[in-house]
């Protein structure tokens, strides 16, 4: 009896792993394919320049002191400047903004070569670089679904075509 249980405990795992070996992998080929993020994803933070009233609440709320209020010549009040090297994307600044001037989108590809390039001046902050120009190889956006106990991937063409 114990021999049968032993053999079962050897052979069954082997069969399960073999089934996995011939099933479809879960890998997403990232620079070409990308997961579709849900609404309200907390990614890169951008600024609606005209809505900002320069109250500085975002700067005071930021837990990592990533937001600094800077003066801009020709403007009446100061604007937030975000250091994405410090930002932890908690988006408390977005929540706390009384005018809805700050908002976050689903871009997470922020890597740069120089550390100083991560400091986004209000102008840069209010002109967010579109995803298409960051990920030039991106062909598909993917959503993962479950059908009949298996994972399936719905491949969408580029996002805007689908929307």
């Amino acid at each position, binding site marked *: 009896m114990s021999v049968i*249980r*032993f053999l079962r*405990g*050897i052979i*069954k*795992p082997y069969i*399960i*792993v073999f089934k*996995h070996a011939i099933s479809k992998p*879960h890998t997403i080929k990232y620079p070409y394919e990308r997961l579709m*993020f*849900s*609404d*309200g*994803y*907390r990614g890169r933070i951008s600024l609606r320049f005209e809505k900002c009233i320069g109250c500085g609440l975002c700067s005071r*709320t*930021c*837990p*990592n002191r990533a937001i600094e209020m800077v003066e801009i010549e020709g403007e009446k009040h100061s604007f937030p400047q975000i250091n994405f090297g410090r930002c*932890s*994307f*908690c*988006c*408390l600044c977005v*929540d706390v903004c009384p005018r809805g001037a700050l908002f*976050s989108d689903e871009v997470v590809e922020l890597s740069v070569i120089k550390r100083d390039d991560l400091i986004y001046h209000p102008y840069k902050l209010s002109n967010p670089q579109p995803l298409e120009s960051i990920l030039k190889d991106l062909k598909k956006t993917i959503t*993962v679904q*479950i059908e009949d*106990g298996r*994972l399936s991937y719905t491949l969408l063409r580029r996002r805007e075509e689908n929307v």
Partner: protein
Amino acid sequence: MIISWGPQHPISGQFRIILETDGENVLKLTPDIGFTHRGIEKILENRTFLQGIVPVERLSMLDTANFLLAYVRAVEEIAEVDVPPRAKYIRTILCEISRINSHLYALGLIAEACGGYPAIFLWTVADRELFLDVAEMLTGTRWSYSFFIPGGVRRDIPSGFKEKVLEVLDYFEGRLETYRDSWLENELFKRRARGVGELPLDKAVTLGAAGPTLRGSGFRFDTRKDEPYEAYEDLDFKLVSMEEGDSYARTMVRYLEMVESVKIIREAIENIPEGRFRVRVPMRVPEGEAYVRVETARGEVGLHMITDGSIKPYRVKINSPSLRNLYVLSRMPEFSRLLVADVPVVLWSFDPWFLDADR
């Protein structure tokens, strides 16, 4: 022979064990922690109550929701705020998702520690993605949710959330059976883990083990049952414990806790009450103190907060479960025979997370 096992080692983590061995027998085992010490207790003294939610999550990136819950509840207790029931249920759901995330990772790590090299680990990580997707839908991010704030939660449940969660849970229950058949009932894994690193009940209690380590030795204690918080009082779930006290029992406790967590999420999402999801908490909380216990994936975390009426806490003391478990690990060779090959198995059956041991 004295071996420095870590921190540059395939499976040691940010952590070192100084092993004194005689051949393959381990004579003494000295954990050396502190590689990830960031002084979070000090950082929290310099953050307002709202800002504190970000650093406190860095205690354990695998189980952010539960650690944050301890902090948020301490603030609420001092400020004497009643959290609306809807927020309590949302918190419970996210905490259990966080617990499943952490336990899945732990199951993968014990598989990897036994040398069942990465297959189980990558399966669990792949399935974790689904729970991260669910959490992303709710909170807007995948790991560091920063979702609980004093007074409630930051967002209401989005539309379609319930269907998505139930779908993921259905799928996950099937996967749990796969794990059981391919790993927990794998005879070679049983031979590697059974009787290895036995922790007797009396030692587990007196040395201060926490969480699944304590329950794996047969001590029936779970903060969720002992001192129910949030919505756990209304929900029906079993307290999991095993008698054997070895590495297999500890792994099994985690596995069965995942099964219970699935039940909790199911029940919570069906019975979620209507109403507000957040109430206002003033910036300044009154002078006072609170000691809050929350059951994280690694055991009970105790957060002692002392306030002095300003916008920042005066002192936050975090009693982390991993530190307690690492002390038990350091005493392990005294009452249990260990070989060099058993060290990774025992270590990851304790599932310490060095980030919250170091704080």
